[in-house]
Structure formats: structure tokens, C-alpha cells
């Protein structure tokens, strides 16, 4: 969608949104230099009975105006875009991360990064950052620069919402290992400075110099998606005008050994949704989106870059079934997808594809396939990036949100990395999870000219589920 058509859509918005804009423009800056704009009233949403469609649909989403990613394909979202399109995998024996003593020896490892002087400004000391912090900061800077919001936004009105599962655990393992040796000098406390679950989000906020809310979430593999959901909530409520949302995680001994102990890791390259799949491969990296309120988009139309997509809705649920196994029929996963679609005012029929959680573990993929079959009509394209870049745990939801936006803006769904057999062989031998139309071999081109909707899933330990719905237009598809 072109920028002019985006603004035309915004201009033809509901009276409610115009009212919100009017209130906002009247308020102006506060006495304190922090703008004090009025929030859009979310009362209509709240007054709807849970489970019933929300009355609000139009302009309720947030525009995606910047992307950043660090994965084993490289330190930019362009690297991720190119890599995913090829259908190849980055899973191999890692170089810097030691798999010695573990049952398996594969991972998707981020290679040496850019020079600090290239990657960073002066605000954050690169060498004081953990690896997870570095991923987060580089991805955030890419997204921030692409968004150009620094030209117009009040730093007080920018929030950072970040997910992760272990933050700087890799560095903490070094500290603890040295502590346990007990035969030399005590390890330096500095190595623990970033070992906080809020480390990556805080580092991003410090680097960008923003002073709106900074919220970190750690709900295992759903962390990144939940952080993006929290960002959407803050944008809708008017707490922020711009949100920097994402997630970051790095490989560490604890998660590598832990997933091995659970026998959830494939000793070979993972094969999401293939019947012969036997587990996941771990990965590392970060994904970041810069999101902006529709009202801010209108007010700064001369400065804002054209949205790449719209975050239309977000939803969450909990299986409440088992600490590590998903509900076998995917009940929680289906509830999560339905909640996200409902939140965006969309019918399941509107969906163009699903970027699945798709870990490659037997239980997850069968449960998710059942959930997708339950929510959507047959034949909906499904893809998983985890065969290509591994499972990024707390960052997975964020990087997959980036991949979903890229698919929407490119008009093509990235293929699931093939590791054995050609697409034809796989389809002919019937080795795909029943009911899943997996995108294989080459990107699946989405119908031209139509508005498109992508659903991104993240499911976590403890049954925490989160789904995000993105679209190419602020208003599109069969709405509720």
C-alpha cells in the first residue's frame, strides 16, 4: 500500500478516531516538555463481552514503520529477508558456542558482528553489553533508523517493550563457573552487570535515549510476541506514540542442556511439520519492530515513512494443561489465534497465511496443526522459519513477527527450510503433518492486489500462548 493510500485510509477513518485526533491536537505539549496527548478511549473494547466481537475495528492497529533483525543469516533484516527467501538453513555446528558434552551438536549461531563503532553510537558501551544485549541494540538501531521517528517524536512518548528468556545467561555461566572453581580470584562483578532479564530492553532504551515506559517480559518462547502485544496495548491506550518492541536471546549452556534433557532437540536439522520430525534446533538473535499510533501517523504524515504493514491485533491464552507439553488438540493455540483475530476485528477467513510456531517437535507441530485446522479453512499456507534460523526462544516471537511483516510487504510467504528431499518428493511421499499446507521450496506468492493478513504464533513452556495478526492495510479483509 502506498503512503498516499495509507493516509487516505486513515483520513476516511471512523468518527471515533477523528475525535481522538481532535483531542490529541488540542492538548499539545504539557508544562513539563513531555507531550500530554489524550488517549483513544478503549471503553468500547472493554464493554464488549469477552468472547464476543469487539465493536471497534477501524484504526485500532499500529503501523509498522521500522524493522530490525539479527539472526544467523546476518545482522540486518535484509539478511533475514534474503536468507529466508532461499529456503536454506543456518543450522550447523556452531563455532563460538561450545556443544562439548551435549547430546547434540547443532545450533543456529550468529556470526561475528559489525564493528562497535559501526553498530553503535556513544550511549552504550559495546563491551559492557551481553551478547543478547548486543543483538537487541543492533536490531533496535536498524529499526529505529528505518522508521525515521527520531525526526519528530518526543522521547518521552516512546516506549520499549522487550521479551527474552535468559538475557545474559551465557555471561552469567562464565561468572558462576569461575565462582565454582574457587581456586583463583573471584570473578568480576562487571560480568554480571547485564545479567538481568530486563537487560536487553533497558539497553535498547538507553541507546535510543527514550524515557517512556520500558517493560520486559519473560514468558519463555512467547516472550517476544507478548512484548509486542504489550506495545500494542500501550499504543492503543495512548500511553505512547511510538513503541520499540521485540525480543532478544543468545545461546547458553543452560538452555542448550535443558532442551537436550527434555529430549526436545533434533540431533539432525529440524523438520517443522514433517511427520519424521524429532525436535528443534536452538538459535539466537533478535527482532525489533517500530510501531506507531495511527493518530501519530496522521499528525506527522510529512515525516513518517510509509508503513510496511499494520499490527492489527494480538491475543493470548494459556493451555493450563502441562508444564512442557501442549494441549494435544491445540485448544490453547486455537484460542490464542481466535483472540488475536477478534482483537483485530477480523474473521479467520481474512487470513492469508500463518507463520507458525512450528518448532519441529512432535507434540508442538501436531497440536498447532490441529489448532490451525480448527480455526481456519483448509489450504491456508503455513510456514515456519525455525528450520532456517532455529528456535530463538524469547526472541522467536519477535523475529517471526519481522518475518511476517516481510512476507506481507514482499507479497510472498517464505518457504520452510527443506533439509531432506525436494518439495515434490515431500509432497508425494506424504510426509507432511496432515492438514498443513506447508510452504516449501520457494516463496509462495500471495494473490496480487488483495489486502493480505498474516498470523504469527508463539507458544511457550507452561502453556503460555500468544498470536499476532498483521495486515497490509489498516482496514482489510472480512471484518467482524
Amino acid at each position, binding site marked *: 500500500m502506498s503512503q498516499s493510500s495509507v493516509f487516505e485510509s486513515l483520513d476516511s477513518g471512523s468518527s471515533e478516531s477523528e475525535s481522538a485526533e481532535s483531542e490529541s491536537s488540542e492538548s499539545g505539549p504539557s508544562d513539563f516538555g513531555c507531550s500530554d496527548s489524550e488517549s483513544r478511549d478503549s471503553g*468500547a473494547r*472493554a464493554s464488549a463481552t469477552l468472547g464476543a466481537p469487539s465493536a471497534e475495528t477501524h484504526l485500532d492497529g499500529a503501523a509498522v514503520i521500522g524493522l530490525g533483525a539479527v539472526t544467523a543469516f546476518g545482522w540486518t533484516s535484509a539478511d533475514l529477508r534474503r536468507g529466508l527467501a532461499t529456503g536454506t538453513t543456518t543450522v550447523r555446528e556452531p563455532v563460538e558456542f561450545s556443544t562439548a558434552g551435549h547430546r547434540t551438536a547443532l545450533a543456529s549461531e550468529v556470526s561475528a558482528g559489525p564493528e562497535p563503532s559501526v553498530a553503535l553510537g556513544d550511549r552504550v558501551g559495546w563491551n559492557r553489553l551481553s551478547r543478547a544485549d548486543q543483538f537487541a541494540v543492533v536490531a533496535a538501531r536498524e529499526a529505529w533508523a528505518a522508521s525515521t521517528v527520531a525526526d519528530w517524536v518526543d522521547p518521552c512518548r516512546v516506549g520499549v517493550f522487550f521479551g527474552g528468556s535468559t538475557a545474559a545467561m551465557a555471561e552469567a555461566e562464565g561468572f*558462576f563457573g569461575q565462582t565454582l572453581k574457587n581456586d583463583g580470584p573471584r570473578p568480576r*562483578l562487571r560480568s554480571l552487570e547485564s545479567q538481568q532479564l530486563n537487560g536487553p530492553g533497558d539497553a535498547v*532504551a538507553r541507546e535510543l535515549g527514550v524515557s517512556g515506559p*520500558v517493560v520486559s517480559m519473560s514468558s519463555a518462547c512467547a516472550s517476544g510476541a507478548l512484548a509486542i502485544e504489550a506495545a500494542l496495548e500501550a499504543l492503543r491506550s495512548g500511553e505512547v506514540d511510538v513503541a520499540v518492541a521485540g525480543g532478544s536471546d543468545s545461546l547458553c549452556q543452560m538452555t542448550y542442556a*535443558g532442551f537436550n534433557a527434555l529430549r526436545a532437540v533434533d540431533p539432525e536439522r529440524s523438520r517443522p511439520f514433517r511427520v519424521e520430525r524429532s525436535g528443534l534446533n536452538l538459535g539466537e538473535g533478535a527482532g525489533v519492530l517500530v510501531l506507531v499510533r495511527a493518530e501519530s501517523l496522521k499528525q506527522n504524515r510529512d515525516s513518517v515513512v510509509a508503513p510496511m504493514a499494520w499490527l492489527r491485533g494480538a491475543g493470548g491464552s494459556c493451555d493450563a494443561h502441562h508444564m*512442557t507439553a501442549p494441549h494435544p488438540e491445540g485448544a490453547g493455540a486455537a484460542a490464542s489465534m481466535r483472540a488475536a483475530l477478534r482483537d483485530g476485528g477480523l474473521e479467520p477467513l481474512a487470513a492469508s497465511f500463518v507463520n507458525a510456531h512450528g518448532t519441529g517437535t512432535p507434540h508442538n507441530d501436531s497440536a498447532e496443526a490441529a489448532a490451525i485446522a480448527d480455526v481456519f479453512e483448509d489450504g491456508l499456507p503455513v510456514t515456519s522459519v525455525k528450520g532456517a534460523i532455529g528456535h530463538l526462544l524469547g526472541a522467536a516471537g519477535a523475529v517471526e513477527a519481522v518475518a511476517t511483516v516481510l512476507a506481507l510487504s514482499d507479497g510472498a510467504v517464505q518457504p520452510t527450510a527443506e533439509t531432506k528431499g525436494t518439495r515434490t518428493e515431500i509432497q508425494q511421499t506424504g510426509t507432511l503433518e496432515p492438514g498443513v499446507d506447508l510452504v516449501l521450496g520457494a516463496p509462495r506468492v500471495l494473490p496480487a492486489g488483495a489486502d493480505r493478513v498474516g498470523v504469527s504464533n508463539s507458544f511457550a*513452556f507452561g502453556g503460555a500462548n500468544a498470536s499476532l495478526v498483521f495486515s497490509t492495510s489498516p482496514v482489510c479483509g472480512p471484518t467482524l
Partner: protein
Amino acid sequence: MSRDRPAIAVSGVGVVSGHGADLEAHRAAYREGRCVLREVDRAAGYHRENSARSASLVDASCYREVLPPMKARRMSPPSRFSMVAALAALEDAGLSRDALAADHGGDVTAVVFGTSYGPSSYTERILRQILLESPQAASPMLFTESVANAPAAQVALALGCKGPNITVTQREASALVAVGQGAALIRSGRARRALVGGVEELNPLLHSILDRFGALTGSRGMARTDAADPEARPLDLRRSGFVAAEGAAVLVLERTDDLLDRAGRARALVGPMARAFDPEAPATGWGRTAPTTARRLLSEWRRQGGVEGASELAGVVAGANGSRRHDLFESGLLREVMALPSNGTAGRDPTEARVLTPKRFMGEQGVATLVGALLALEGNSGGSPSGFEVDPLICLVPSDDRVQPGKLLLSAAAAGGSCCWLGLESP
């Protein structure tokens, strides 16, 4: 705040801490203003010779009847604390597991917890297995219970809560942010009810690290005697650090109309939440002053419907814990709402609002602010700090008076720069 937005009530509270697992014990401790300290096990050799020795630790025997060892055996300590607090909160709210499950199959109940460090003892144990034995010695049970969201997941699993399940990890601000996030889920219609709160576990390794950072009352780094660690002195000129603590508190949040329908009782109403960040703060500490951050907090607080000035507040529940840097930084934020000059005149209670410092009786854990606020709204008066000495750079004096019914501002300033204000008010 728009009048169309549903009002959210706190209908139940459960708490477990060094004071035990029942609210009455916390009432008594709040009135006395005393913190229960226990000796930290230093046998693992993590501590320096002259380290701090004590902390406010949970005695597991206090909840054995509620959560028998057989049921707790696959739970990390923070999962246990959370379960005990959640069960007590449900009972206090007049709800049961069956009632939750019967309500839309549990789909309407969210769980939002906050934690600073997550399950630290299980993390330590699995790392010992990996680093001292071999990676293949890692226990799958320890691994699944070492993740930060294990407590929220265990509570949802046990109580059949199938709504959104979220764990906030923003250091000292985690619990307040979790309450605000839970209220937002209800206001936006994503949940109808939420179990919210926070949980912390303090194992010897974490205690020793906090000590090495010089954060604890007993960790001044000087030659020491066998004397007990000094008490925490929030806001006091002579403050030297905080008392490390563990425990959990869980609140049941509901829409007031739902509460009316079931003839339930509101303990408090949830007010606005304002959040901000100090980008100049060091990664593990607090900046010196943050006027921009303070202005952002106050601006957002008022935009959300918060009061204009201290005269409209029944009290301020500070996160002050006795840390020199923390308390100084937080006082700078609070002066914005109190409209005090930055170098205000020292003296007894120079503000129009009561300043409560509940971490004096519960130690440093985010939920202390929540528990203290709810006890204050019950009409309890806090115990007097002995020989308080005003810090001229802070000029805030803890109050031991009973607060009048009204609005409370709860404050949290997290290491690293994140800040949160949350409103609770009399029903």
C-alpha cells in the same frame, strides 16, 4: 481515565513472606514495623568473610498445610510461594478453583506475575549440574522450573486459568507493572479477571552477589564484628542498604460490576498506572536525578486520571528500601507529585501526603509496596521507625499514622532506570 472504562477492583489478596503465609501475621508485622530476619546459609562458600548474613526468608513450614510437600515436590520455591499466595487470594476473594473453571471454562482468567530474578535456586542447581558434572546431567525438571514464567504457569495449571499468561521482569518495578498489565487486560476486554502480583526467591548465591555489589544493610565492606546486620532505614540519612527478601503476593482483580453481581467485597480499586525510564541510569543502579523521567511520570499519571497534587492523596507508598542511591533517586520522582522544591526544608513530614515505607517490614521485594498499600487501606497504622534522621537531600519522612480512606500512589524505581507509579484507592 474515561468514565466508560470499567472500574477494576482488588477482591482478594494472598501473601507469603518471612512473616508467614497469612494476612493476619502481616497486619501485626506492619503495625510493629518489624522485619523478620533469618540467617542465610553460607555453607556453599559464595560469601565473603565479612558479608551480610541475614535476609527476610520464607519458612517453608508456614505453608505446609496449604501446599503439602508431595504437591510441591515438582515446584521451584517461587512456584510454591506463588501457589500459596494465589490460593489464599482466591479464598480471600470468595472464589474457588471450580468457580474459575466454571466461568467460560477458565478462558476469562489471566495470570500476570512479576519477578526480578526468577527461580534462582533451580537456576543455580541446574548450572551446578552442567558445570560441575556434565551437560548431560541437567535435570529436565529443574530446567522447566528454572524459567521465569514457571510460577505463573504453575498457578494457571493448578487453577485452570486459560486467559493470557504473562511474566513481567522489570526488577523492582515488576510487581506494580504486573498489576497494571493485568488491569489493562481486563479494561481492554482480553480478560474478565486476573491473578496478579509478584514473587521473589532469595538463594545464598543471589544474596552473596547482592552483598558483593554492596547493596545490603550488612555489606559495607569494612571490618565487621559478629553483630547482626543493621535494619534497613528507608529514606533515613543513615541508611546503608536494603534487607534482601523473598516471598509472593497475589491479588485478584475483577471488574466492579462482576464483583457486584456475585456480591463480592472490594478491598481496593485499581487506579492509573504511569511508567517512565531514566536513560542515564547505569545498568545495575539508579541515576542521580532524572527530571525528565519525573516529568514524564507525572504527565502520564495525570493523563491517566491521577490526582493533580499531594493534597488529593491519602498517602504515597514508596519503594524506598534503605539503599542510598535508590531512595535518593525515588525521592526525586516523588517530589514532582508533591510539588516540593528539589532542596526542600527538612523536617517531620514536610509533605501534605503520608509517606509509607513498607519495605521496612517486608524487605526488598516488589510486592511489599502492594501489601503495605492494602494494609494501609484497611486502616492499619505502621510502626514507628526508631530515631529517624532526615536526609536533607531527600526531605521525605516516613509516616506511622493511619492513612485516611482515599487514594494511594504506589511507587517503584527499578535498578536500570525503569519506574512505575500505580494507583490504589479505597473502594
